[in-house]
């Protein structure tokens, strides 16, 4: 890693040049909410003016830029009673600007799932390799809990990371590409004072978290609480709408559909991101549904995020961005569900060990 500092106007000029020259995505305000709050999304940007440099958080994550909501996996052609398959891993290079540390950590987790297993995804790899990521730090929102998940800082998975140290950005340069792009702009080696400002900035960020979700020992808790009534309680609220998984930066489940084209001469195989909360997620041929109840399905979403599945070394895959909590129309959010689960367990501990009464 190479460290540099850059003035804010110069950084803006650098970003402007970069996004003008490349297909780029960055945070943009797309709406104003009911209470006047700006709503942001990662959207195509073609100049620095279009980017909301001081954005808070995007409603949806950036994962669809690496793993599209819909993606054609292959095309089949039928001719003379025979068939042929065409697969393409084409991914044009893109710049992804403004990702938060939790978002970058989320991509690192996706890398493990999509690239480390016995069957790495060439589709994902093609996109990932061609994505230039610029991260930016920020002060957490009142409901961010990435610090609880220990995903509030990151040291890999990006090309360039900009920390706001007042008049300047402190740049962590993590790729030769980024280094070369920056050569044409005015940067300086960080002074002792810059280093201090960075440490100060990190401290401020760390101390600004208002939401703490207690996740230590949670994997075991979840195992013990497999039959907890809280799953039914929260499941009764769940609309089975899949919104949480769509906005989540680490949900990666998908469904594969095949369609014969109208002329019957070709067909396509398409991947569509799915959600374990959707009613037929665990339905199999013949119609049996392994998770028929809302609570069953919600439970598994929490299991995957806070207990982990073997495919990603039993790691917790939630990075604590709380996008799911903000977007859920039924008011279901990790903090409340996990607290409820803990309360459940604690009250149970007090009731199974009452002081023995002499009769």
């Amino acid at each position, binding site marked *: 890693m190479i460290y540099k500092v850059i003035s804010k106007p110069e950084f803006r000029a650098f970003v402007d040049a970069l996004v003008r020259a490349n297909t780029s995505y960055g945070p943009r305000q*797309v709406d104003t*909410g009911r209470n006047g709050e700006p709503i942001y999304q990662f959207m195509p940007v073609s100049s620095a003016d279009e980017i909301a440099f001081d954005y808070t958080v995007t409603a949806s994550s950036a994962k669809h830029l690496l793993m599209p*909501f819909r993606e054609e996996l292959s095309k089949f052609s039928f001719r003379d009673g025979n068939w042929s398959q065409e697969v393409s891993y084409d991914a044009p290079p893109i710049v992804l600007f403004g990702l938060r540390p939790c978002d970058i950590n989320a991509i690192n987790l996706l890398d493990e799932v999509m690239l480390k297993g016995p069957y790495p995804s060439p589709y994902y790899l093609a996109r990932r390799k061609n994505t230039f990521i610029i991260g930016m730090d920020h002060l957490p929102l009142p409901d961010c809990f990435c610090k609880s998940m220990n995903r509030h800082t990151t040291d890999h998975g990006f090309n360039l990371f900009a920390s706001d140290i007042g008049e300047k950005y402190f740049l962590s340069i993590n790729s030769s590409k980024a280094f070369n792009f920056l050569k044409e702009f005015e940067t300086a080696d960080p002074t002792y004072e810059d280093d201090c400002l960075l440490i100060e900035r990190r401290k401020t960020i760390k101390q600004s978290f208002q939401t703490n979700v207690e996740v230590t020992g949670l994997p075991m808790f979840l195992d013990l609480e497999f039959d907890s009534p809280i799953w039914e309680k929260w499941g009764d609220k769940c609309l*089975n709408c*899949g919104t949480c998984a*769509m906005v989540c930066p680490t949900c990666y489940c998908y469904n594969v559909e095949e369609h014969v084209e109208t002329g*019957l001469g070709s067909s396509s195989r398409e991947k569509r991101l799915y959600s374990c909360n959707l009613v037929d997620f665990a339905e199999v041929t013949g119609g049996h549904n392994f998770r028929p109840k809302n609570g069953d399905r919600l439970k598994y979403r929490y299991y995957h995020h806070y207990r982990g599945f073997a495919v990603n070394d039993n790691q917790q895959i939630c990075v604590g961005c709380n996008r799911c909590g903000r977007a859920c129309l039924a008011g279901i959010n990790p903090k409340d569900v996990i607290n409820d689960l803990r309360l459940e367990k604690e009250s149970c501990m007090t009731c199974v060990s009452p002081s023995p009464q002499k009769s």
Partner: protein
Amino acid sequence: MNHLGFDIEKLKIGSFDFTCCEGCQLQLANKESTLPEFLALLDIRNFREISSERLDDYDIALVEGSITRQDEVERLKAIRAQAKVLVAYGTCACFGGMNAQKNKFPKEECIRTVYGDKQIDTMQESHKISDFVTVDYSIPGCPVNKEEVERIVVSIATRSPIALPKYPVCVECKQRLNTCLFDLGEVCLGPISRAGCDAVCPSGKTVCLGCRGPADGINYDSFVQLVKDKELSTDEMNEKLAFYNGFTEYLNHEG
């Protein structure tokens, strides 16, 4: 026609309209890019919008429109008797549709308002066709989505399974990165309506009115709670639920 070494017979199809705007049938002639291929799959025996043939030896009947007159019931039953496969085509046929707006008013009042003193034969309610005949497949939508129609027709032709998405519109809405209309202070039926339209309404900043009917396993109680929690109007919600008549069983169950 030959597909993967199998001979595929053209589908002998008839299309019939009842009480409706015929907009769904018109959709069949839409999407010009694949129209020739689409028509090549079909042997049109009876279809007013496309051809002047009037033959009664169809296997598949697309039935569009709701049932609002007694003579329509007889005609519908005759179609059922002939068709091997009967498809409820469009929201009116599937649920009664917009025509069911009249259901909550006395029939006489409706007739007077629309037709004045003319003598009109109409039922008290606009009915979905499954109130009278067995329906094999439903293709909801106001109007239907031609892509979905093509897909289902191709599935029938190639004998592949036919299914509509079971999940609600929100999935597709989120995939299009739309701002949720609840966040803008509106009541949207997306969380309880069947997807498959690519969330076309919320993508145009108009709330979903549920033209595709309820999704599978919807959580109606939680939906009502959501509207209340957001301090939005339940009257407005009920009006929307009644718009296409797809949610009658839930509306009645709430009282």
